[in-house]
């Protein structure tokens, strides 16, 4: 009976389908699943054998069986696909679980050098002046006596020379005691208006201790134009100090003496420890000196080739060593020359 044979084949297909779906569900890993796939959908699978019966059936019965086989195959393949995704996801999860790290172990150490705090301050201060429109110039550290002193209104045997004990190389050549000679060099090289800062090392023959060294940094400033006043000097240096130290620090200016400025001013900053009341770190004064400044002396303007009747200007000398000590609370200047890594790494 043809009908019986067809029914028989259809039952077989259904049986294989059920078996396959059970086997797929039972596969524990992708490898087992692959075996299931080969067994039920491969060329030598049961379903393929059922398909081989097709030729023995009359043509009108063939589509019935063909549809059944294809439907079963489709269902098995879909199940295989689904099971495969699940198993892959599980396996990835297991693998990642095994790759868990101790996130508290330190990361790879990348190379990293430390900026020297003194030069860091120098760059910060120069940056502030750059923002305020100042050009940067350089001058020689080994200078003529004439530029370091005489053109700055300090003739030989002037008592003001005692303010700066000098290292001499010859009678006329010395290690500059200040960056101020650069004022003359700048004025010789350009006509007003002028707005420059000149950074560099200066040298004084002084005994070294916690707050004095015989080599230290200085940033000279010079601003000359037709209407420059002491008020401009105060405004400029106050702005720089506020940007460097913070706006909450009070600044004061008081009369002082430098042979190359008139009027002259000393700038003080309120002691950060006692807020001006007087304490040990400021020697009971409440204020700490930040540096000298003043209106460029008419003789110096003349020495630079400028006409003091036409122009006026201010000049100043900023001491980054002191600025750095005050900014970070460093108590011994000599640390700046030791290049101790334990010191250097604190400022980066």
């Amino acid at each position: 009976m043809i009908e019986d044979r067809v029914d028989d084949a259809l039952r077989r297909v259904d049986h294989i389908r059920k078996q396959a779906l059970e086997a797929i569900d039972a596969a524990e890993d992708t490898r087992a699943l692959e075996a299931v796939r080969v067994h039920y959908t491969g060329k030598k699978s049961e379903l393929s054998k059922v398909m081989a019966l097709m030729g023995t059936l009359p043509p009108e019965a063939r589509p019935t069986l063909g549809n059944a086989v294809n439907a079963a195959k489709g269902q098995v393949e879909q199940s295989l696909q689904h099971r495969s995704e699940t198993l892959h996801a599980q396996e990835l999860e297991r693998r990642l679980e095994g790759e868990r790290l101790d996130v508290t172990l330190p990361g790879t150490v990348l190379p990293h050098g430390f900026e020297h705090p003194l030069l860091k301050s120098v760059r910060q201060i120069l940056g502030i002046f750059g923002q305020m429109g100042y050009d940067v110039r350089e001058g020689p550290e080994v200078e003529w006596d004439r530029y370091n002193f005489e053109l700055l209104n300090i003739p030989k045997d002037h008592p003001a020379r005692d303010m700066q004990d000098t290292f001499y190389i010859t009678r006329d050549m010395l290690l500059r005691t200040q960056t101020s000679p650069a004022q003359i060099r700048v004025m010789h090289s350009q006509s007003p208006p002028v707005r420059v800062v000149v950074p560099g090392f200066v040298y004084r023959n002084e005994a070294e201790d916690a707050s004095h060294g015989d080599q230290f940094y200085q940033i000279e400033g010079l601003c000359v134009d037709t209407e420059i006043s002491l008020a401009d000097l105060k405004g400029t240096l106050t702005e720089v100090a506020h940007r460097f130290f913070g706006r909450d620090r009070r600044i004061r200016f008081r009369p002082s003496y430098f042979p190359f400025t008139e009027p002259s001013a000393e700038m003080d900053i309120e002691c950060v420890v006692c807020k001006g009341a007087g304490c040990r770190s400021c020697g009971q004064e409440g204020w700490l000196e930040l540096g000298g400044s003043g209106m460029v002396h008419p003789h110096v303007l003349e020495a630079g080739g400028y006409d003091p009747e036409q122009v006026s200007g201010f000049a100043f000398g900023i001491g980054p060593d002191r600025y750095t000590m005050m900014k970070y609370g460093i108590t011994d200047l000599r640390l700046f020359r030791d290049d101790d890594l334990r010191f250097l790494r604190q400022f980066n």
Partner: protein
Amino acid sequence: MRVPLQWLADYVDLDLPTHDLATRMTMLGLKVESIERIGAGWHDVIIGQVTELEPHPTSNKPLNVATVDLGNRTITVVTGAQNVQQGDRVPVVLVGGLLPHGPDGEPMTIAAKPMAGITSEGMLASARELGLSDEHSGIHVLPPDAPLGEGLGRVMGGDVLDIETNPNRPDTLSMIGIAREVAAMTQQQVRLPDLDAPGNDIEWMDEDSIEVRVEAPDLCSRYTALRIEGIEDRESPVWLASRLEAAGMRPISLLVDITNYVMLEYGQPMHAFDARALEGGSIVVRRARAGEVMRTLDGVERALSSDNLVIADDRRAVGIAGVMGGENSEIGPDTTTIVLESATFDGASVRRTAQALSLRTEASSRFEKGLPPEQAVHAARRYLQLLARVLGRTVRVARMADAFVAEPDERSVRMPVRDLQRLSGLPLDREYAADALSSLGFGVEIDDAAVIAHVPYWRRADIFLSADLVEEVVRMAGYDTVPTTLPRTALAPPAPVPSLYWSGVVRERLLANGVSEAVTGTLTSEEGMLRARLDKNGGEPPWDDLVPHAAGVRARDARVEPIRLLNPPTQERDVLRLTLVPQLLDVVARNLKHTEERLAFFEIAHTYFPRPDDLPYERRTLALALSGRRSPRTWLEPDPGPYTFYDVKGLIETLLVSLHITEYRVEPGRWTYLHPGRSAVLRIDGQDVGVFGEVHPRVATTFDIDGFPVQVAELDLDSLFAAASDHRTFSPLPRYPAANRDVAVVVNRDLAADAILATVKNAGDALVESATIFDVYTGHPLPEDKKSVAIEMHLRAADATLTQDEIAGAMERITDALTRDLGAALRE
């Protein structure tokens, strides 16, 4: 200048609390450095007199038992001091009293305690215990007129301001000068001593004091001399002695103390000669003679020259003008007649002499600032007045000798109001300025647009120009009244400075690669630099390999010598450095002492090369020093290796990339203190611009560096920056694929890698886009003198994809060239 306020109050009323007074003086330009409160820590310190003094009867220590009269009662005091004598007046601290400075430096309360059986009812105090000075060798014995029973604080106490004076203001080195400032500040008149006050027992004799001849009129503008007779020297009274002490001077004896007192009061140094010592009846002010020698009051024999001005009698020098008197004319206990000098010497000359003799004195530090001749006479008259008053009897004085060689010109300075306003930024007017100057002692006139100020004699040293007067007016107004503004100057925005820009590029690159910034010092010693030399006694100096060529530093083949200081701070720091490396090695050595982690330092600084008849060439130089492990020990890398030659070379290569310098050569170098096989020189355009390599182990030991090799470099940044460029040009990305091929060859071990790569590139024509060595191997199974080198090549044509035939052809040409030109054997 130490200013006891109790003394200053003689000339001006001081109604302000001391701290406020000090702040106002500081803001006026008289910077108060510190305030000392003498006697603030004294409690129950009384002036007593030792009436009896006996050794302690039982103690075997050197103790004395003193009976001390306190005026209204007598107490017994046990003291260990040996300088006390019967009759001395001394400071006595009563039981329960307080001293500022006990043995531990802290305040101390006195308790009644038995000392070897005798109870001491008080204590005799030293100057240190009283906080007066560091002197603690004995009891601070007081002058005999110290008032018995009086509290010591009432006699010697009071606040003292220590004022930092400016060299342009010799007048502020005097009480009267300070008083003038305070008077102007507080709108008072200063009270000067009345030199014409009646009641002085002075008998003027109808004869000349002494003949004065000024033979060097350029160095002495005025010389006055007074012969004073019928006097005696003795201890100064307590008021005088305690004022001198409070002002920081030690009392010596009356005749000397009054000169010091008047110097502090008027700012005029004086000197008293014993008249007996002056031979020939005249005083000569002259330059010292060549070879002339004189012993000064401090007992030192001084060799003089014609640069020194001396005071002499007819025969010999008796004093160095303005500096110190001579021992030969010193006054002593038996002096009855003195010649008092009050003179005006040239400031520059006194300064030179004091410097040449290394003899800075209170006198010279005043003279060198330039003193007005007017005050010489005031001071002499004041001396006479005080002397007569203290001696309490008539002194006989001969007519003053007054050689007034050069009378100073009166000086008037015109200050246009425009100057005042444009320099200060304050809207001050003529009237304000005139008042301010007038209160400072200037005579003042006003015209349409200016104030004309007549300079008082005591301000002649610092008031010359309009700007000087501006400062006077503005400081009277107060610097804190000046507004804060910013200049409105119209200027082009600042231009970058190439050397600073490139320094920044180099620094950033080094910091990013783990190298820290060091700052050592300019000053070093030649020996210090020569430590970086293989042999103690030989070898070229370490700076000789990198001497600048272009800057005219030296004639060819002449050795460079470091620039020497005439007055070095120490012998270890007497020259300007020619190389940075030795000091950087010291930095490495210092840091190695407390860590052995990664040590990598750079310094950018000048090295200084002498040039004949010119300022030296200051070359911007970069030094590198690397030592220790090349990375820190971590759990990831438990045992990192040391820095090697190729690390320092790599740093230099990355710097060259950042400077965009592509045309350079690295060749074996012979820097004298480097490992002979690990030393290289960097050349640009045939010029040496850098040397680097591994420090010779023997030299490393000299620098106290053991355990790790040290890699160093020194580069001429001026030359590198001259070759640097920010210019870049875009190249189109390749459109056709590259073929990558590796080849390994065995070559002689001493063949330079450069030669292999050059051969590859030449042989491959333009097809070799890049060739890199990725492996170098020596050892088994290669023979001792061979090495294997593996090269990776990227072959590419710009206009087409290379065919297999083209690639094979290129590879054949390359391998042929390697075998033919370099004797290489191909490795399969």
